[in-house]
């Protein structure tokens, strides 16, 4: 039942703007709706054994619940953050009130399609859901209708469409391989059970297509070219959604196919590919972070880095590696949302996004500045924040497997990025604030979002709640780490 609630709420909220005209009221209703969704998904996490999928259309296991939970955390924070953000956009005449209503409609279509991805039983329908996420979010990337945002949206929609075509090609080849052994329905569970007898070569080729295709959407280098543009040009609450969870839905899709592939050809094949792509992503992001000038672009490249870390964890494998990777999925979603919201406030206040001339954020916006600095430490992997622990787990997995070169490169790139982010952001955070700039006061809803996300990063780092631990452990078992 809860699963249906999670889908119905965004659907209702998507049509709501045609009835409710006031943007602020819409924003508040939106947040309440997503609070409800968050509670529903929390219930799923607490009682995973009691989850029954409402029809043959859905397939819910621990792995899906974990991703649903991650998505609901970020959608809730983005919804709450949007209330003030959109209102300020309206009052400074960036957008009209009608446009604000369109924003809420697209926001909800986008979230709805993201919630679909981990729920559907059929792999091709999962593909449709992922393509819908691209189409819905393209409008949100090009939301301000400026030259640069439309350019980013076009690049986004084109590059991801090509990626998604490759993914569909892979899906069809998977289908062919399974139909040769009698499974003709593309249902994930049936395909897993039939995977032993599938043609090994065919599965390998299909998996390559899947990895390149969905990898484009997940932001793996060298297919990442759309990502920095789209994330930096999107309206800020959406940047958090794109980076925090859109990439994760593509990762989820890859994982489902990985399970079939590993059953068929052994885990060596996918592991090697994951490690190679992960290291390329880490290297590319490290280079671009160091020379970066814009705050949101820097955060976008940092997303590529973290996707790389996640795939490295999956590539290293074993219980520790898989656990670390899944844990990192959640940690990155939480921390990166915090950072994008912080950057959004800062850019709004300074009216520019150039880190070479912005100074004194701590003194001009004490609350956002403090949260931003703490979030920065969390993002670059300082203890006691959660990202430190997941990155450590992944490192341990690599060393445990004896993959010293990959682990060494991983440490090296992480250290470079550590230095790069610290250098760029400390310039912006400290120093004298510009003359005549008043101290900023954030609204209550904005403060709640920051504190909520910050508490999550700390709690996940220091004292992982037992129920969450259990759901990640059972997801690891599904991924074959048992």
């Amino acid at each position: 039942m809860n699963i249906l609630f999670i889908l119905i709420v965004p659907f209702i909220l998507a049509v709501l703007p045609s009835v409710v005209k006031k943007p602020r009221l819409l924003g508040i209703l939106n947040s309440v709706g997503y609070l409800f969704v968050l509670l529903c998904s929390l219930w799923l996490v607490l009682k995973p054994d009691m989850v029954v999928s409402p029809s043959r259309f859905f397939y819910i296991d621990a792995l899906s619940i974990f991703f649903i939970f991650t998505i609901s955390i970020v959608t809730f924070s983005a919804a709450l953050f949007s209330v003030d953000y959109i209102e300020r956009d309206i009052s400074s005449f960036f957008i009209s009130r009608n446009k604000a209503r369109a924003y809420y409609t697209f926001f909800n279509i986008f979230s709805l399609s993201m919630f679909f991805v981990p729920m559907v039983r059929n792999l091709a329908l999962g593909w449709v859901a992922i393509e819908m996420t691209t189409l819905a979010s393209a409008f949100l990337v090009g939301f301000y209708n400026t030259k640069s945002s439309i350019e980013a949206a076009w690049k986004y929609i084109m590059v991801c469409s090509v990626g998604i075509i490759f993914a569909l090609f892979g899906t069809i080849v998977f289908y062919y391989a399974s139909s040769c052994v009698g499974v003709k329905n593309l249902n994930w569970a049936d395909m897993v059970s039939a995977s032993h007898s599938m043609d090994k070569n065919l599965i390998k080729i299909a998996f390559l297509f899947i990895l390149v295709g969905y990898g484009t959407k997940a932001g793996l280098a060298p297919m990442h070219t759309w990502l920095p543009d789209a994330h930096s040009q999107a309206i800020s609450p959406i940047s958090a959604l794109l980076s925090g969870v859109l990439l994760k839905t593509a990762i989820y899709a890859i994982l489902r196919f990985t399970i079939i592939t590993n059953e068929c050809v052994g885990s060596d094949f996918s592991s090697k590919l994951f490690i190679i792509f992960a290291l390329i992503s880490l290297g590319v992001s490290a280079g671009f972070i160091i020379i970066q000038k814009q705050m949101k672009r820097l955060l976008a490249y940092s997303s590529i880095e973290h996707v790389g870390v996640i795939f490295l964890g999956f590539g290293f494998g074993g219980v520790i590696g898989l656990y670390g990777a899944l844990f990192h999925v959640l940690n990155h979603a939480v921390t990166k949302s915090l950072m994008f919201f912080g950057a959004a406030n800062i850019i709004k206040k300074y009216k520019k996004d150039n880190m070479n001339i912005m100074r004194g954020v701590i003194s001009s916006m004490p609350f956002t500045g403090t949260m931003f600095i703490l979030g920065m430490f969390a993002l670059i992997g300082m203890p006691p924040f959660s990202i430190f622990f997941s990155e450590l787990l992944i490192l341990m997995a690599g060393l445990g497997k004896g993959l010293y070169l990959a682990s060494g490169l991983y440490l090296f790139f992480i250290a470079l990025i550590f230095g790069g982010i610290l250098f760029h952001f400390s310039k912006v955070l400290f120093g004298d604030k510009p003359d005549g700039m008043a101290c900023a006061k954030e609204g209550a809803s904005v403060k709640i979002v920051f504190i909520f996300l910050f508490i999550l990063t700390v709690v996940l780092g220091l004292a992982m709640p037992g129920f969450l631990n259990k759901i990640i452990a059972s997801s690891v078992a599904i991924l074959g780490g048992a």
Partner: protein
Amino acid sequence: MYIFLIGIIIMSYTMVMAKRMTSLVASFRMQSLFLFLATFFMAMKEKSAELYIVAGLLLLLKVILIPKFLSDIIRKLKMEEGIGLFLNPLVSLLIAVFLTYISYVFTTRVITFASASQAFSFSASLSVTMIGLFIMIFRMKALSQVIGFLAMENGLFLVASTVSGGMPFFVEIAIFMDVFVSVVIFGIFIYRINKLFTHIDVSKLNTLRR
């Protein structure tokens, strides 16, 4: 059967050779027509009602509606006819032929198929997909990129309907819907680009660097 596949590939070549937008759309329409015929032929062979419906949808969407939509865009934007060649037609054709050869070698060497005709279909669709990708990368107008995307999708339909005997029915319908929605959304963005930049030359979209 083979004649349809060869038709589809040849239409890919004419798309690569096309110098003007209208002829690009016309080639795409012809390619979709051959795809429709191939699917229709499969439907007759397998006597499957679902494949008939899929063929009908192909005819409706890809042969009639989408090319009409694209021609409308060309007419309304009054764009000058060039499609933004990045490589000249002859070199492009050579590359396209080479892509076909690579697809053929790849298919026959790496994969073992149940029958020779399946292997042929698979290599044909792989090569159509690759040529579509080539058009997307090496043609600089937003609209020609959309057509490249559609050509890639034609390759996909070919592999779905001929090699694997059609995907599950509701999946095919969902994918059709998806293609249609994406083309409409591409169209909306093309209009927006045209309005903001007064052209749709993608190679000149370069405000975002690094």
